[in-house]
């Protein structure tokens, strides 16, 4: 039996939360469908020949990066990132909540640092002015990295500073990863 922080189901009860959840799911679903479609076109084209699929590798690279970063930002809001819950399951609820806050705040700081370095990389790319897919500037693809890390930092910070009721602990068989 493991205890787990209640996920963000609470925020989905209000209209704003529902809208954000729908937008997130829609974005991830669209990115996933697009990357599958492009990969399918590329693989069919390369196996059977005749189709000009030279653009497909760049498109898959960009879509995969966006899928990873948008998915990671969504996972942060749903507490879906891989975590080890050894210590928190050994302590009483009060101590476990403190440890959880500490872990979320640590994750927020790390995400913020990654967002900062991501921003620097984007600014560097802006100076280089490289393009992919004929006319798409590379910085426009890379910009998702600092943006997603910033969203992750905000979400982890919100979890870390949230009032106690948000940290309802539930007993859930086999929910831990």
């Amino acid at each position: 039996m493991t205890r787990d922080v209640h996920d963000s189901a609470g925020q989905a009860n209000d209209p704003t939360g529902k809208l954000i959840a729908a937008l997130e799911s829609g974005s991830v679903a669209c990115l996933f469908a697009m990357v599958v479609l492009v990969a399918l076109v590329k693989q069919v084209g390369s196996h059977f020949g005749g189709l000009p699929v030279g653009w497909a590798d760049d498109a898959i690279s960009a879509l995969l990066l966006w899928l990873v970063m948008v998915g990671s930002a969504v996972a942060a809001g749903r507490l879906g990132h891989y975590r080890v819950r050894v210590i928190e399951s050994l302590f009483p609820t009060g101590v476990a909540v403190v440890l959880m806050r500490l872990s979320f705040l640590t994750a927020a700081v790390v995400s913020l640092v990654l967002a900062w370095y991501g921003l620097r990389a984007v600014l560097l790319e802006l100076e280089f002015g490289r393009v992919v897919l004929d006319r798409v500037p590379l910085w426009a693809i890379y910009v998702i990295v600092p943006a997603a890390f910033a969203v992750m930092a905000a979400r982890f910070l919100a979890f870390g500073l949230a009032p106690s009721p948000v940290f309802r602990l539930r007993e859930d068989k086999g929910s831990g990863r």
Partner: protein
Amino acid sequence: MIGLVLLLVLAIGVPVFAVVAMAVLTGFLQAELEPALLIISVLELGDQVQLLAVPLMSFVAAILGRDYYLNSWILPISSMAGENSGLNPSSIAVRLLSALASGCAVGLTMVIPAVLYTAISEVAAPRHSVSAEVLLVTALIPVALVAVAAACMPGLGGRARSVFGSVSVAAERTGRPLWDLGAAILLLVAVVAGWLALLDVALVAAIWAAVTRVLVFHELSWQQLTDKAVRAAVTSAGVLLVVGLSLAWAAILHDAGTLQALSDGIGRGTGQTLAFLLVASLLLVAGGFVFGLQIGVVLIAPLIVPVGLSLGVDALGLGVMCLVGVLLGRGSLALVRAPLPEGGGPTS
């Protein structure tokens, strides 16, 4: 000291990606490298197109159910093999069929770890990288043997049946897993024959799973399919973020020569190699137990690949060891979580 702090941070529940990022940033600062280089490996994540197999296979797993092939085939069949003790012809036939079915069924389960291991080893040991297809095919034989051997142990057989018996009964009633096993066998034959790469296999498997469940068996609506796609994409995004950061970790370990210095300190010889293999195996089983197949490979492979290669261990052999080790760890977790069968009889 830093390693202990990171382990503590990991243990209190800080997400794995943040811990890996902290480890990499610390390594960069110690090596007096620009920390911004960490982001480069994340930016270049998309360049490894083969990693697309991760969300695709996660999508397959989301549609069919977590550990579907493990639950539907490997443990129930292995459990049957365990019940047929003795060396009569029918028992031998059952065991051989178990080995075949388990090997084929587990093949698709191992696609993701094989792809992840290949991506990591290309950075950790650029001159010794192995093809994911070759690795998968080579790993199938020991994996099948491990599954059957584990099933022949009385305690394991009983636990497996208690957990997965209902799935096995469902499989007999519907016959659908037979379709899926057939598809798995066809896909693996295509990989062995060199007709398909692992990314092709993942694409075909994803389309197969979606089409059969939505259009043929009508088990899922389009809305449910979309929900499963979102869940799979979000889950695999978390894994791939760890992969991106681990690539930087593997690169710094490789560039700084840290592990090379460690292996030089260990020395070379049969005893050292055996000790390394033992420690690495334990690490992999522990990694699979705690983190699961995917994260287990991503975290442990950068550590053991450079040391193993410097001790003269074959690169392909290391890959097989990685896959089998984390699978054993993952399987152990399933067995630990499983309740003992009522009545206490292990295989009764």
